[in-house]
């Protein structure tokens, strides 16, 4: 059973609402758990990687409650800070994201309660909800400017991918467009996993250079 150890009195304990323990953690959850352990060992910056990974989802959850761009950023920020403070007590009994999701929902509810406002959204606290509806919320958060930037960036990346060598293009495409694991890619390309990892990284580095130029 998941435990949320919060020093903030406003945060509810939601242990009773939690889903059953997941038997097998996904690759993503395993990766998160590795990062959590690093944070617990004192490598505080490793938490930043979790923030980067989940900031969009957490923002989307917050937005679904408060329906305001600025306020949802405040709630999302607060949720991450609470998670960080409680991370020491996290034992990996469930996926990190499940845990973070509950913290975000409670933070948003408390935020609205403190302002005597009712939630704009009634979220069902189930796993499907965690992973599906954030996309819609993020789309609502988009402005014409960010949409334009996204489209331009997408174009830059697509052109860069097209210009990659065959071996790099295959590896990155299978990973990003088809969502294949390294193991699956290695099998499809008939090469070692280490080679897949290296090719994907090299492709990312080339794309990254273009992104840096684009951002400048």
């Amino acid at each position: 059973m998941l435990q949320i150890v919060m020093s903030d009195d406003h945060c509810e304990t939601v242990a009773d609402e939690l889903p059953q323990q997941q038997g097998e953690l996904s690759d993503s959850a395993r990766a998160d758990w590795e990062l959590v352990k690093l944070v617990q060992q004192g490598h505080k910056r490793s938490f930043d990687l979790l923030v980067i990974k989940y900031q969009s989802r957490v923002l989307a959850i917050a937005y679904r409650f408060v329906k305001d761009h600025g306020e949802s950023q405040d709630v999302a920020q607060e949720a991450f800070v609470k998670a960080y403070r409680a991370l020491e007590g996290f034992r990996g009994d469930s996926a990190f994201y499940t845990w973070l999701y509950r913290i975000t929902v409670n933070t948003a509810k408390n935020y609205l309660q403190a302002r005597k406002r009712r939630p704009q959204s009634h979220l069902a606290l189930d796993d499907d909800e965690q992973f599906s509806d954030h996309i819609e919320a993020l789309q609502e958060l988009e402005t014409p400017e960010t949409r334009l930037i996204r489209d331009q960036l997408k174009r830059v990346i697509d052109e860069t991918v097209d210009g990659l060598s065959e071996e790099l293009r295959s590896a990155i495409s299978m990973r990003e467009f088809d969502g294949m694991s390294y193991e699956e890619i290695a099998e499809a390309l008939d090469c070692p996993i280490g080679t897949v990892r290296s090719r994907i990284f090299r492709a990312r580095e080339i794309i990254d250079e273009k992104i840096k130029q684009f951002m400048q």
Partner: protein
Amino acid sequence: MNDKPIQPVLKETLSALLDHEAGKVDALELRRLARALEQDPELLLSYQRYTLASAAMRGETFSPGADFLGRVQQAIASDTATPASERALQKPWLKMAGQWAVAVVAIWWAQTQQVSDPRNVPVGADASAAIEVEDHNTLGSTTHNRSINPRVLTVSAGHSAASKVNPTKVNSSQLDPSQLNASKRGQSKLQGGECIVAEHLPADGTLRRLQLPEGYVLCQMDQDRQRCHSVSASVACYVP
């Protein structure tokens, strides 16, 4: 900024991490990455861009913004998870405000650029004077001073915390560390945006929004306007 070249092996580990392969990464390799992250902010930037590229390739919507991580880091460093309005009342620098007359200034970091916003007229300060910036990093572990040569534009004059809040004045703010860091890295990321500024008045701790012109950041000045203090997390700037 760390000028040493980033070891490709660490970035390759980051790349694997992005692909959820960290569970299969050697524990030593992960620890080495974790140690490097503490010292080299460029690694985090790389990870952010990898994430951005990945999202773009999948047609996903963007994340909150480049400054979000900085805000979280800043809030963690300040150890505050309470609402912004309450946070504003808990800051040590608010207690110090009685000793300081606080002025809010916008700093034009790139001296060579021209002021494009006619609302911002240089007042008082010597544009060529160097200002000492007391610079706390985003996790608050180190502090050092450095000199910058900004063009100083006074947005509003400050006053002590004991006096009543004048709604026409902004009486406390400080640098957004993510922007400060960006400038330290020599990147042109400084942008205007909407900032939420915590008012000083302890009784209400109200927030107000301040429109920051492109290229400006906020800082808290001491009385003689020679030092800019970036001390805590009560100002959040949103890049539009």
